[in-house]
């Protein structure tokens, strides 16, 4: 594969800089920063960018779920986003949270979402300007759809998927996959009672998808990683998961938009749900089925 399945979904820092320098010429573009550390946006953001925070803005504070449709519509209006706005996401950590926000926007049916390739890191490496100005965009008009469950997998569905032997990708670190790292001490909200992985899941840690400068690897490299070595198939129903569904939204993005997979879901409950729920099947070790040694470990047994 010589190029990404959707070339347009990635925009360059250069293009974003031209939008930021001349926003009047791009009234239909809204730049959105989403970070692991919120204070980064406060410290300096792309001029004109608004912030959408994954915890405070996108997640419901009471239920363990995303904000509902009405709250999403309200959020978009406040951030100056209308249904026809081109929303360009970027952030820290090689765009983890940007991809998470992108996924949430797709969940509510937003048509035109992009990612600024390289995120904060590349913007900084290129010495581009940061702004500390408060951004107060004109209100948008917004009507969201119901959640698009074709990109979101809930626990029972993942269990059926697993029992049917369908492809699962675990994008956490090798130590989390093997079960060596059970949970982080004094971090109960992000820990699990059990360690290991979902039986049959292959391990492709998310950082393998990105370069040092925060940009995505080339189409050729991604194809090699996920299709040639990982043996994932473009048309097969595939589920990606991590610990809380954030890193796996990056993998979901790579598979769906860069490699052109047609049916990938993000299991946002991820290990925090699976490793704490009763009677969920779990295996430990470095192989998909938990066997002590497997000659085809790298290719997976799914």
């Amino acid at each position, binding site marked *: 594969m010589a190029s990404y399945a959707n070339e347009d979904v990635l925009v360059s820092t250069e293009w974003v800089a031209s939008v930021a320098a001349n926003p009047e010429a791009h009234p239909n573009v809204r730049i959105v920063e989403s970070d692991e550390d919120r204070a980064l946006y406060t410290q300096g953001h792309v001029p004109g960018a608004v912030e959408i925070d994954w*915890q405070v803005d996108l997640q419901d504070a009471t239920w363990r779920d995303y904000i509902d449709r009405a709250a999403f519509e309200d959020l978009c209006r406040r951030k100056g986003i209308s249904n026809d706005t081109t929303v360009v996401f970027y952030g820290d950590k090689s765009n983890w949270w940007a991809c998470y926000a992108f996924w949430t926007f797709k969940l509510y049916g937003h048509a035109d979402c992009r990612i600024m390739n390289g995120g904060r890191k590349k913007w900084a490496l290129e010495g581009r300007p940061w702004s500390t100005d*408060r951004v107060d965009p004109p209100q948008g008009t917004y009507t969201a759809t119901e959640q698009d469950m074709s990109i979101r997998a809930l626990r029972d569905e993942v269990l059926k998927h697993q029992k049917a032997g369908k492809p699962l990708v675990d994008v956490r670190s090798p130590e989390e996959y093997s079960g060596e790292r059970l949970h982080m001490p004094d971090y109960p909200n992000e820990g699990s009672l059990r360690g290991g992985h979902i039986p049959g899941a292959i391990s492709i840690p998310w950082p393998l998808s990105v370069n040092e400068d925060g940009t995505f690897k080339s189409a050729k490299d991604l194809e090699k990683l996920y299709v040639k070595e990982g043996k994932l198939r473009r048309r097969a129903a595939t589920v990606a998961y991590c610990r809380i569904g954030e890193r796996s939204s990056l993998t979901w993005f790579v598979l769906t938009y860069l490699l052109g997979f047609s049916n990938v879901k993000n299991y946002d409950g991820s290990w925090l749900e699976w490793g704490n729920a009763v009677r969920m099947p779990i295996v430990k070790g470095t192989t998909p089925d938990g066997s002590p040694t497997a000659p085809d470990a790298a290719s997976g047994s799914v």
Partner: protein
Amino acid sequence: MSTVAERLDEIVDDFADLDGREKLEMLLEYAAMLPPLPPGHAGLDENRVHECQSPVFIQVELRPSEDGQPGIYLQAEVAEEAPTVRGFVAVLAKAFAGRPADEVLAVNDTLLDRLGLSEVLGMLRTRGLRAIIEYVKRGVVRSLAH
């Protein structure tokens, strides 16, 4: 010299009337004042706060303070990409500097609510910062045992 509780009350007052954005700006001001680790101490696993995803190293030291009594001092190395953590550790470093161990051990995790940071940062990040308070307290207990 004011006590840890008095200093924290003052800091809480400073944060009190700020909106979310201003609270983060205040935290960034603290972040810039974080006392650095002495050379050679950065990156040491014994100082690493494993609860944090970004590299965070905190050294808890018990040494004579200005009034000659043993006092707690924090020095830390926090990744540039984690300014919230930098700022919060700096708040603790300022509040604790030179005060006796029992005053530090008496600090509880309602501090984050009192600073109004819980609603600005969300539940998971707040948990991460609570873990730092606990980490520092464990360090204080260790330093007393030495």
